[in-house]
């Protein structure tokens, strides 16, 4: 990576290129496209958590004026009967409340809604599996009779889809050496990403079998391949045009409506638009897992951790795929341990198929372990930062999941915490303070980018990573830095599947790292071409030309009486030197640096009502290098508030039949502005050696620590621990009453 050089663009806070459109209402999101002759599609959803579909009759719906098409699972290709296809539209069984059963397309959304009531479905209701405890109990009903753990058909069918283990050393021996052992069992509820824009798409299929989908997604290429798979079509027959995206947080990395809309467009010969209601978003799209985690940690009197174990069980919903891998990878990542064992269980239940949610899997497992570490610090009468400092992972530590950490910023974050004025401030009167560490390993993966130079030297970046939080600004900043030209002369666009090279989905905090690296390399390609053009113009060898401050100049010592050539100069004469300037890069980015954080929450508790007031919150995180610090802070603040919401009030509430009772923003209580204090942030920069400017992904880590930090704060305020989340007023008051009566 580049040495700490004098950066001109990176680290500044310019206005994002897509900003004006977003503050004026001109930006087009998923539901904003209308096409001539368009139909409106709606989906009929299961009112049962688990039932066999005996029959579906759409004839009454089809008879309604304005209804053009009505379909159910049997109308979709046999081949699409995999998990993804069955999640999109049920076949023989419905597996959760809200599971799609049938769909209609009509001339208006109102008519389509009315038609849903005319679809007759006969169900045989089955007993649902609604919790991890129930799923793992003897004689539990099976969500899927053909599911065998890890595909091992020699064992009986089970609700555990997958089991994994990571271990090192001898935990028995480690615990035997411990002076203090802390053990606890922690539950975290199902939480939804809560993006404000519901899923939306418009699809149009041509008579030649080529279709186009406009939709809000984190990954247009995944929409293309997944839709093609579900509809049994060639990937290249579908073009996906991503709209602006109104939040995703992982929840828009899969598909729900797209194949249904495209299929009904094919059947009707007209474009079909489908937009979910908020209720549908909650009931039928993937939230993240509810979890049951057991954490055990032992230490010597001096604070040296001798052993730790974590047993994790994550609800997958009705199909395998809970984020147990990342949950296991993260749970002990902050600690340099000789002895540990981490087990993960992917558990099927009759709830919606989980989807990624910001640092998928890490907040739950780290909630358990960071609470346990907090208890350990109390038991040892040690400062919680000192305890962590004594045991923390650092450069050279072998991570629990295998690799040896290159330079990481955990120690720097812990040191910054101790020095922070907010940490030195007294905690609220009659309140508490809790701290916790957060972690996300970050990912790289495939990206491509083109940098196109206009006739006047203007720069257009074309890349394929949907921009959820300002990444186009970061791309422009990195291009500005690399090319040495002003930010204002650069624009960045997110292309559709035919307008840009392949990019993996925006997620895992990979975009600024991996797509950013592609943009930098494409800019370097431009520089190389510019040097060539200048050499040609000056009749020099290319290795006699340098690129400095956005201009080609002769290398020092080269005897040439020429004026520097700016990018604009070279662009203007490009026709005479070989044609338009077009830089390209494609890569599979390696070495996404892990990002650690330390967060602390200050709370007050109303002991008569159980209400928790967050009085202050501070987030410190290693960003490697903050390209656009305002958007890095924004990630930290947004993740913090999502984590606080999860800690305090957010949860899926099901009745005994498995019907979701709070499928709306009224009772799925995400934080509102008046609930929250300002979120203080401090960016720590320990450069990632694998990125030209030192970037680490920053988007995931912020949601991880707030859960345990808040639990620990409430523990501090109350004098006893509440193990489960959310710390909703009824739970807190009940715990206070129990404690008083005990």
């Amino acid at each position, binding site marked *: 990576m580049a040495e700490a050089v004098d950066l001109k663009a990176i680290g500044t806070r310019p206005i994002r290129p897509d900003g004006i459109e977003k503050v004026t209402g001109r930006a087009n999101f998923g539901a904003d496209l209308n096409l001539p002759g368009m139909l409106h599609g709606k989906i009929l959803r299961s009112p049962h958590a688990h039932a066999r579909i005996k029959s579906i009759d759409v004839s009454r719906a089809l008879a309604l004026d304005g209804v053009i098409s009505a379909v159910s699972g049997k109308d979709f290709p046999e081949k699409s009967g995999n998990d993804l296809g069955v999640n999109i539209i049920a076949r023989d069984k419905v597996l959760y409340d809200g599971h799609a059963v049938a769909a209609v397309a009509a001339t208006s959304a109102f008519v389509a809604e009315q038609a849903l009531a005319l679809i007759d479905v006969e169900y045989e209701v089955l007993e649902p599996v609604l919790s991890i405890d129930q799923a793992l109990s003897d004689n539990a009903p099976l969500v899927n009779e053909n599911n065998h753990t890890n595909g091992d058909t020699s064992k009986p069918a089970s609700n555990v889809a997958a089991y994994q283990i990571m271990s090192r050393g001898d935990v028995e021996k480690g615990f035997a050496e411990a002076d203090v052992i802390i053990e606890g069992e922690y539950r975290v509820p199902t939480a939804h990403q809560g993006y404000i824009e519901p899923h939306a798409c418009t699809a149009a299929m041509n008579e030649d079998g080529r279709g186009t989908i406009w939709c809000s997604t984190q990954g247009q290429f995944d929409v293309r391949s997944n839709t093609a798979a579900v509809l049994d079509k060639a990937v290249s027959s579908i073009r996906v045009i991503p709209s602006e995206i*109104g939040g995703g947080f992982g929840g828009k990395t899969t598909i729900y409506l797209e194949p249904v809309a495209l299929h009904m467009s094919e059947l009707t010969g007209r474009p079909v638009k489908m937009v979910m209601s908020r209720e549908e978003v909650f009931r039928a799209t993937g939230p993240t897992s509810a979890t049951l985690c057991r954490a055990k940690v032992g230490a010597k009197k001096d604070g040296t951790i001798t052993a730790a174990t974590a047993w994790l069980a994550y609800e997958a919903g009705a199909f395998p795929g809970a984020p147990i891998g990342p949950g296991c990878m993260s749970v002990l990542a902050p600690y340099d341990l000789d002895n540990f064992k981490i087990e993960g269980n992917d558990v099927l239940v009759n709830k919606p198929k989980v989807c990624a949610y910001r640092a998928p899997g890490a907040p739950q497992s780290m909630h358990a372990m960071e609470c346990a570490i907090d208890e350990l610090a109390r038991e040892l009468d040690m400062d919680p930062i000192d305890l962590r400092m004594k045991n923390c992972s650092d450069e050279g530590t072998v991570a629990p999941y295998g690799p040896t950490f290159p330079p990481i910023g955990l120690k720097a974050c812990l040191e910054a915490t101790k020095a922070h004025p907010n940490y030195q401030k007294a905690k609220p009167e009659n309140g508490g303070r809790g701290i916790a560490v957060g972690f996300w390993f970050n990912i790289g993966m495939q990206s491509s980018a083109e940098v196109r130079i206009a006739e006047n030297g203007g720069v257009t970046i074309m890349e394929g990573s949907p921009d959820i939080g300002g990444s186009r600004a970061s791309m422009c900043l990195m291009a500005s830095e690399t090319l040495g030209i002003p930010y204002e002369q650069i624009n960045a666009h997110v292309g559709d599947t035919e307008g840009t090279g392949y990019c993996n989905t925006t997620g895992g905090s990979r975009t600024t790292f991996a797509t950013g690296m592609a943009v930098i390399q494409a800019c370097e390609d431009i520089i190389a071409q510019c040097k060539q053009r200048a050499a040609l113009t000056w009749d020099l060898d290319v290795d006699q030309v340098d690129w400095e401050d956005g201009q080609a100049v002769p290398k020092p010592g080269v005897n040439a009486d020429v004026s520097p050539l700016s990018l604009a100069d070279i662009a203007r004469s490009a026709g005479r030197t070989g044609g338009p300037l077009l830089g390209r890069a494609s890569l599979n980015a390696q070495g996404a640096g892990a990002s650690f954080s330390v967060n602390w929450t200050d709370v007050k508790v109303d002991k008569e009502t159980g209400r928790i007031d967050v009085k202050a919150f501070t987030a410190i995180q290693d960003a490697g290098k903050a390209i656009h610090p305002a958007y890095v802070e924004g990630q930290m603040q947004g993740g913090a508030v999502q984590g606080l919401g999860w800690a305090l009030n957010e949860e899926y509430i099901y009745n005994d039949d498995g019907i979701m009772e709070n499928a709306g923003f009224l009772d799925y209580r995400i934080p509102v502005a*008046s609930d929250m204090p300002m979120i203080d942030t401090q960016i720590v920069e320990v450069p990632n050696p694998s990125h030209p400017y030192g970037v680490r992904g920053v988007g995931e880590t912020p949601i991880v620590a707030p859960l345990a930090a808040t639990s620990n704060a409430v523990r501090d305020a109350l004098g006893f621990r509440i193990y489960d989340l959310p710390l909703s007023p009824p739970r807190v008051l009940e715990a206070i009453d129990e404690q008083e009566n005990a």
Partner: protein
Amino acid sequence: MAKVHVTTSVNNQPQEFLCEPQESLLNCLRDEINLTGTKEGCATGDCGACSVLVDGRLVCSCLMLGVEAEGKEVTTIEGIAEPDGLHVIQQKFLEHAALQCGICTPGFIVAAKALLDKHKDPDEETIRYWLAGNLCRCTGYDKIIRAVQDAAKELAA
């Protein structure tokens, strides 16, 4: 089903449209007159993405019928900018990075305008409670509050 003819004013321009009696003002704005800057996040009044001003008062357009706009003056996000450029609130949202995905932004800007039309110097608590009906899932509200504070300061100057 008989559509109703509605005569109203949208963003200071006379506007007529036809709508069904049960259609929300939000759907009328988006689908009948193509003003898609006003967003739907919930259609139940819980998120504020559809905020508009009706006769200067802040409302959720999802909780008002299109027919109720008869004779009213409606202001949407498309009508917030001044003839000579962005409104101060819009400019401050940009400068403070007060948006990430941007879906809630139109509603926040309209709501903030209603606030600053009424309160010249709101404190942080007033701003937070006034904007409590506008959900943002990206920013944690911090930079939004700061943008509104800064806009208030600039408008007062």
